[in-house]
């Protein structure tokens, strides 16, 4: 190892790039996803969905469907638990409508039949009588005085009096005195921004296979980011004990937050209970778009003051988020993330959670943060250009550091924003001359990251290998990272470790794979479980040598006596100890169960070059560089993959992805033809720079990386496009018609 590589000098496996253990299965098609399993006697289900944005359900007549011999059961709301409250009731309402259908695509009934086609046809024979109600799908309109009320009494106590009942939660945070701050500024810019809802766009539609017996025992196989959560919710919704339902997570074809929510598993269980047969339920792409969660859409007002040399004197933001027909739009995250990159004396932010007749929003990578960055970083960009200042220098001047009082309250621990800005400034991309017709945009982004309940088990085998069981579905190559961390601790080769995402009967509760928590929390747990196993291994060696366990230490796969005083014994390899473990005290298993709280926050800086065809309004992203703090990159390739994925999804959201509703409140573009995610040829090679400022809360310094990468793109691209077009774009997506419109307004008023 080269001497200049000291940083990684202490690691042998961590920081290397071995092949992922699930890779061969995935490229050969052997991996089993949600829809890939079957059971003897299995039925197929289909869901009947409301074609109306808002309607009272007057009657559901199943007689025509039930007349077919292929149809075995129909379930409606009456087949689910009663008496649920709060969030549980909200989930049930979303899984199966009660008195009202609240959005186009809302489930109102489901049918189980002997084939997928029979189920699809039977669903058409279920006659639902609706009384259509007025609807609203736009966030600003949903807050307006005369807007139809989605649900009376849905607001919580945070909402100040006088607001429309569709405003269901309110948030306020900040410090200092913004008015005083604006008074100190040489330039104050105030502007409004709008973003449309974007879907996570995972390739694999939701799918499950479920069985529920009359005695309340159940089995579920499903594609999810969190099978323990599926277990908990299913038990409540069908009315059985959580421990009686065993859930196994399949391989997952993308989630990005959208598979932290539960949609179909309780429906399959209810149908299974009614038919006493296993039931398979697979969503179509149209159902995924209409009935699972896109992110919230937003309407935002930002005001920022700056001195002529670039110091931000105050920042203020108002964030209105529409999250569908249920409370939960992540407006507090939007508000809290908005100014987090900056060390501000005066900052104030307000958030509104607004209901409308759209599907319940679901988490999407750093929920709420990308939109905030779009609005705030656009205004900072405008300030920089009007004051003639360099956008990276201004951000460096104002950057949050260790000890900064964050815009959302606490003081930052060790953080790496400055390091990402310095690395961006030094990157050849930033100094490359900008060709004619191109614009260059820069943005910072922030995400909290998360720890969460975590439990793992590390079982050693007689042959000296190790099996790690985790409860966090692998959504980004985490099994590889887990194996690396265990290999690092045990001192055995990466290939000698297998990591399995174990079912809910095997481990204690694990929170879903969200909040960029897996490599941090399951990784921390895997390291600690390894250390637990090592302690036991050392104990066995000590017993064999007849010395104190404290006199034995573990070094690169061997138990060794700790010094001359401990005695002179030949080191024992891991396999030497496990070979006889049955006779020396029984199986050796390492454990760790906890709720780690030290997930370090993470920052990124992105640089984008974009070209705009001013005759057609079409944008092409020509160069893209992601610089992000990973704390410690366990598997750099998969860290880079997260960076690139965040940028790619951000490009889609910024340029073309949007939920388009018609006057009738129906979703117009529930397919990948018209919901335009980028295709491969739309993207440049996305360059990545991994900055490593260790997180003090993780043994190796890991910070989550999955979400921060989607925080800067909307803003960085908007800044590049605005530069190239010569007009500020304030609405996402910046689709060609919107860009031409903005150019037209600029030219002709």
């Amino acid at each position, binding site marked *: 190892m080269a001497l200049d590589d000291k940083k990684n000098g202490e690691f042998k496996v961590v920081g290397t790039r071995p092949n992922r253990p699930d890779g061969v299965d995935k490229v050969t098609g052997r991996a089993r996803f949600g829809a890939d399993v079957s059971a003897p006697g299995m039925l197929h289900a289909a869901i009947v969905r409301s074609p109306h944005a808002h309607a009272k359900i007057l009657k559901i007549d199943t007689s025509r469907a039930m007349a077919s011999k292929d149809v075995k059961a129909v379930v409606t709301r009456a087949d689910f638990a009663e008496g649920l409250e709060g969030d549980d009731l909200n989930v049930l309402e979303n899984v199966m409508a009660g008195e009202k259908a609240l959005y186009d695509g809302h489930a109102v009934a489901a049918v189980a039949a002997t084939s997928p086609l029979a189920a*699809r046809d039977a669903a058409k024979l279920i006659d639902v009588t609706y009384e259509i109600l007025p609807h609203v799908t736009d966030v600003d309109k949903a807050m307006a005085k005369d807007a139809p009320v989605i649900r009376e009494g849905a607001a919580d106590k945070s909402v100040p009096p006088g607001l429309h009942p569709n405003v269901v939660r309110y948030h306020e945070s900040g410090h200092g005195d913004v008015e005083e701050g604006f008074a100190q500024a040489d330039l104050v810019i105030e502007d409004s921004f709008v973003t449309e809802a974007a879907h996570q766009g995972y390739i694999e539609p939701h799918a499950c296979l479920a069985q529920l017996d009359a005695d309340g025992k159940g089995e579920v196989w499903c594609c999810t980011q969190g099978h323990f959560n599926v277990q908990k919710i299913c038990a409540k919704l069908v009315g059985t004990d959580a421990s009686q339902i065993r859930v196994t997570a399949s391989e997952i074809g993308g989630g990005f937050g959208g598979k932290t929510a539960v949609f179909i598993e309780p429906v399959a269980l209810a149908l299974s209970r009614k038919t006493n047969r296993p039931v398979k339920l697979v969503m*179509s792409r*149209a159902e995924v778009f209409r009935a699972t969660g896109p992110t919230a859409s937003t309407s935002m007002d930002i005001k920022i003051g700056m001195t002529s040399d670039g110091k931000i004197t105050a920042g203020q933001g108002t964030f209105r988020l529409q999250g569908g027909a249920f409370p939960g739009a992540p407006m507090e995250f939007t508000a809290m993330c908005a100014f987090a990159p900056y060390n501000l004396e005066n900052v104030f932010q307000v958030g509104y959670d607004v209901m409308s007749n759209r599907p319940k929003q679901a988490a999407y990578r750093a929920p709420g943060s990308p939109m905030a960055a779009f609005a705030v970083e656009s205004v900072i960009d405008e300030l920089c250009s009007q004051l003639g200042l360099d956008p990276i220098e201004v951000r460096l001047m104002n950057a949050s550091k260790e000890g900064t009082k964050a815009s959302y309250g606490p003081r930052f621990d060790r953080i790496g924003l400055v390091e990402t800005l310095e690395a961006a400034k030094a990157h050849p991309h930033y100094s490359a001359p900008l060709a004619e017709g191109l614009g260059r945009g820069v943005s910072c982004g922030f995400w909290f990251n998360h720890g969460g309940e975590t439990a793992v088990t590390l079982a050693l085998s007689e042959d000296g290998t190790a099996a790690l069981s985790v409860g966090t579905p692998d959504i980004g190559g985490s099994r590889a990272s887990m194996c690396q961390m265990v290999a690092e601790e045990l001192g055995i080769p990466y290939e000698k470790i297998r990591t399995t995402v174990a079912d809910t009967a095997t481990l204690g509760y694990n929170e879903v794979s969200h909040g960029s928590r897996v490599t941090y929390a399951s990784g921390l747990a895997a390291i600690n479980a390894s250390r637990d196993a090592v302690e036991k291994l050392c104990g066995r060696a000590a017993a064999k040598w007849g010395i104190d366990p404290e006199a034995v230490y573990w070094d690169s796969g061997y138990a060794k006596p700790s010094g001359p005083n401990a005695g002179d014994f030949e080191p024992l390899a891991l396999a030497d100890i496990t070979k006889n473990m049955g006779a020396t005290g029984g199986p050796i298993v390492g454990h760790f169960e906890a709720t780690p709280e030290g997930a370090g926050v993470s920052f990124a800086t992105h640089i984008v070059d974009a070209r705009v065809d001013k*005759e*057609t*309004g*079409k944008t*092409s992203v020509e160069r893209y560089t992601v610089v992000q703090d990973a704390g410690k990159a366990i598997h750099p390739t998969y860290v880079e993959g997260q960076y690139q994925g965040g940028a790619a999804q951000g490009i889609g959201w910024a*340029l*073309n992805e949007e939920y*388009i509703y018609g006057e009738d409140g129906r979703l*117009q*573009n529930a*397919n990948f*033809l*018209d919901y*335009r995610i*980028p*295709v491969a*040829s*739309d993207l440049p090679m996305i360059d990545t720079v991994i900055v490593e400022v260790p997180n003090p809360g993780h043994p190796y310094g890991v910070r989550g990386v999955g979400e921060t990468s989607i925080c800067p793109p909307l803003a960085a691209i908007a800044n590049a496009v605005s530069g190239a077009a010569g007009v500020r774009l304030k609405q996402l997506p910046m*689709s*060609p*018609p919107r860009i*031409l*419109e903005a150019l037209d307004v600029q030219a002709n008023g």
Partner: protein
Amino acid sequence: MQYHSPASFEDAVGIAASADGTTRFLAGGTDVLVQLRADVFTPDVLIDVKNIEGVKDIVCEDGGWRIGAAVSGAEMSENAELARQWPGLVEAMDLIGSTQVQGRATLVGNLCNGSPAADSVPAMFAADVSANITGPNGERRVAVSEIPVGPGKTSLEKGEVITALHIPQRGDNAADAYLRFIPRTEMDIAVVGCAVNLRLDGDTISEARVSLGAVAPKVLLVDEAAQAIIGTSLDENALNALAAAASAACNPINDKRGTIKFRTHVAGVLARRAAKIAYDRVRASK
């Protein structure tokens, strides 16, 4: 649903003419099967034309070309002489879908699916392609521009099937071009499409045909746009007149894919750009 795979067009016509309910012919299936799977349209009778002799032919005939009813986009692109003579038509067909779709999709299917946004159709209009049609009342040959009548609708009678397409003789000093506007780089549907087919006499345009897609209920042949450039050497004035005529011919809708204003404007932009490409192609071939 019934599935038939006749060995002759005569049999195909017989089945189609006597079919109960709705009929679809199955060429590449990239519209028919997709609509079936997506539960958009399920025909009662499906008639596969791919086992009929000659449907995969690309042959020179009467100085022009005969393209069989099941020739795929990939097969057209691989025919170097066809691509040399009719680069616009071949590139329009080649824009359709992905590599996988190219292995199946046909000109006839693109035409008969009846989409106003179909990519190869403006290029066929501009090239003055005609279709051989066989039906219960015998054979007829009509200009392709007479086949689409509205979204999803064609002028074919019950029982009629297209047996082949005819591309006219290319002749000298001529070339065509097709451009479409999509917000992405591929795998998208035309928001506007424009084909231009030109013949020059020296530097002067002596013949022109201009066709627009996705700006009206069916693909348009815009004679005013052609007239705007005939007799010119495609100078700035001619290009402006062309763009204005193209925009004026538009009768689009506001929908999820684009606004009326956007489509109308971009039709003019594409007409200019496609005309320039066709013009440069002729000059480069001299």
